[in-house]
């Protein structure tokens, strides 16, 4: 047999053998978690710690608890590069993997979330857009497979305004607030809420869009810092836009303690490049800071100590912790669903039930070792946000520190806005909302 024939035979044998080898694995007692990540490209500095948080938490649960009630967690990463079409490709590639298909998808991009909503709903797989995506998807009667816990952008905008109001001794009447935002669907999300609050609280809102990617913002900041001179600036930025904005704000002398970003403008990657200029800058967050929780020591002892895990370099960073919390909420939705369907691998449809019946009390959070990393949430058929709280953190030049208590967004007003928008969506798409009173 010549070399060419030998190689062809080997390839043919491998092609035949691969599915056979894969069969025993597929038959195992495993819950498959698809991970849409961006470890490369312009948004990699944010994508890496997020993905690391997920992986390390899954590793911990397998090592410490043997998975979820004995069901081993498996996962596969798919690189989206923060790109919508790649995100859809990843979804299609991963949705049927594992013995029962994908548990739930965390798109980690508002654009990908929008692209997946209808597909995932048709496939009966939950989309968990934690702190991004469509705010009105909170209304579970219209969006049964989309979850927004613990807070939407609209809730984030309200919490930031509440914080500012508190700093201004309770009144925003006559104050000027500028919104600097990424000129995209994501960046425009808070505008309606901030406008509604402007009417209610009596402040003047000025809008400053920044074109993607936001490498150059001198004109924007000259307008803000030298012409408008607002009392406060709120930022809805992403990637390099954030650090550039902080530097430009500093260059025109705008004080950092009057500058608050949303949670995607509040990671280490956003402030470190700005150096000393970032000291005093604030951001909203719904996840804790630092590496002092019990889950961190467990990861150190049971994952890193065994040479496993991926997040040693990003350990305890804001986005690493967010990855942990995201993974934990997803796992607890599975655990909740196991209570009804049994301790076995579950389908996306079953996990959807788990999400809708998820009740993470402070006691449960403490038991999970997540104390200080998140606030309690309780989801239901119609409320997919779960009533999470938001905190304001401040960069001291080295690390983030909480400077406020957990703030409860004013959900009475927000729910009306969610419902109006969701019903409009239902009308446009011809969706008949579920009757949650019968669930």
């Amino acid at each position, binding site marked *: 047999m010549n070399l060419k024939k030998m190689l062809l035979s080997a390839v043919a044998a491998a092609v035949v053998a691969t599915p056979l080898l894969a069969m025993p694995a597929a038959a195992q007692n495993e819950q498959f978690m698809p991970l849409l990540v961006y*470890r*490369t*490209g*312009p948004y*990699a*500095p944010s994508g*890496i710690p997020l993905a690391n948080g997920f992986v390390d938490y899954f590793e911990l649960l397998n090592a410490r608890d043997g998975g979820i009630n004995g069901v081993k967690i498996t996962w596969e990463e798919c690189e989206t590069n923060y790109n919508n079409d790649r995100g859809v490709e990843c979804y299609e590639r991963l949705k049927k993997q594992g013995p029962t298909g994908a548990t739930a998808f965390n798109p980690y991009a508002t654009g990908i979330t929008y692209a997946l909503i209808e597909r995932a709903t048709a496939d009966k797989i939950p989309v968990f857009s934690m702190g991004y995506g469509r705010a009105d998807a909170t209304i579970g009667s219209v969006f049964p497979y989309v979850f927004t816990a613990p807070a939407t952008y609209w809730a984030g905008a309200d919490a930031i305004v509440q914080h500012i109001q508190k700093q201004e001794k309770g009144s925003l009447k006559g104050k000027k607030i500028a919104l600097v935002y990424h*000129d995209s669907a994501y960046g425009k999300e808070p505008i309606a809420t901030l406008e509604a609050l402007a009417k209610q609280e009596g402040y003047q809102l000025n*809008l*400053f*869009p*920044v*074109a993607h*990617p936001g*490498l*150059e913002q*001198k*004109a*924007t900041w*000259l*307008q803000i810092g*030298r*012409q*408008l001179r607002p009392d406060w600036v709120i930022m809805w930025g992403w*990637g*390099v836009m954030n*650090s*550039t904005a902080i*530097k430009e704000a*500093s*260059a*025109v*002398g705008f004080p950092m303690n009057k500058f608050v970003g949303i949670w995607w403008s509040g990671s280490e*990657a956003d402030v*470190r*490049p*700005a*150096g000393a*200029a970032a000291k005093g800058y604030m951001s909203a967050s719904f996840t804790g800071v630092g590496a002092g929780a019990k889950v961190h020591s467990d990861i150190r002892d049971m994952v890193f100590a065994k040479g496993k895990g991926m997040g040693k*370099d990003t350990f305890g960073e804001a986005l690493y912790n967010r990855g942990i919390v995201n993974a934990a909420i997803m796992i607890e939705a599975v655990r909740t669903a196991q209570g009804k369907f049994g301790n076995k691998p579950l389908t996306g449809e079953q996990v959807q039930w788990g999400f809708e019946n998820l009740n993470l009390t402070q006691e449960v959070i403490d038991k999970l070792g997540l104390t200080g990393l998140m606030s309690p949430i309780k989801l239901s058929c119609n409320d997919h946000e779960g009533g999470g709280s938001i905190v304001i953190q401040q960069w001291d030049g080295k690390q983030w520190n909480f400077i406020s208590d957990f703030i409860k967004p004013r959900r009475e007003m927000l729910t009306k806005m969610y419902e109006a928008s969701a019903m409009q969506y239902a009308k446009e798409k011809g969706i008949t909302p579920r009757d949650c009173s019968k669930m």
Partner: protein
Amino acid sequence: MFFSWPFFFEVLIGGLLAGVMYSLVALGFVLIFKASGVFNFAQGGMVLFAALTLVGLIELGVPAALAILLAMAAMVVLAYVVEKAVLRPLVNQPPIILFMATIGITFFIDGFGQTLWGSDVHTLDLGIPNTPLFFGDILVNSFDLVAAAVAGILVTVLAIFFQKTRIGRALRAVADDHQAAMSVGIPLRVIWVIVWSVAGLVALVAGIMWGSKLGVQFSLALIALKALPVLILGGFTSIPGAIIGGLMIGAGEKLAEVFIGPFLAGAIEDWFAYMLAMVVLLFRPQGLFGEKIIERV
């Protein structure tokens, strides 16, 4: 929003200084296009690679001055590899083939740089101040003044190199006519290595300045997008064109953003720069300072 002349001049000066930063990137494109007729799509990637190498070495504990020298050496090695592995096999191919090859180089450099040094944001702090300075009522940022000084020094050094040195004269000869230059004994391949090396060094300077401003991260590769309208406006073959084009684009886009932007919902500066360049293109296809192409049939 109000209008005042001091504010107008503040925006104008800020725009001119921002334009200098664009020129730093545009210069690298011009050097390679001038000497080889190749539009080097990889220039943005080279800026990223140079800055990543520099900051990576500094993070490994190498003193800043030595790290700069080592990063310069890395750019020379990169130039050599590009010439040997990509340009040499493609000699005498149409320009579009060489252009496509530089797209391939871009992806390779972006990926290789990140594999080597990681995809995280790296802070590059060389002590350049970033504080507002006031000249009367007009605010100017100290970082921008340093950047303008660096660009000025760089252009002076490049002008001396091109005008006063033997290699510089050989480069100009190659730029004027490849075949005539070869017929008098100028080695084209060596010249290509030299010109890619010089473009690499310019990329390092641009990488240092932009990296100090934004942090060293993948987005640095995207600054090539800011240099394109500068090249269209200034001409692909003119170093003064790159500088003046940068100043015009910088000032034009900032004034447009501040004084026209509010009437068009804002965020117009990026497309306005391209529109400005396009208008120039309509009247001077070779750019304001580019060489007029005359072909006889």
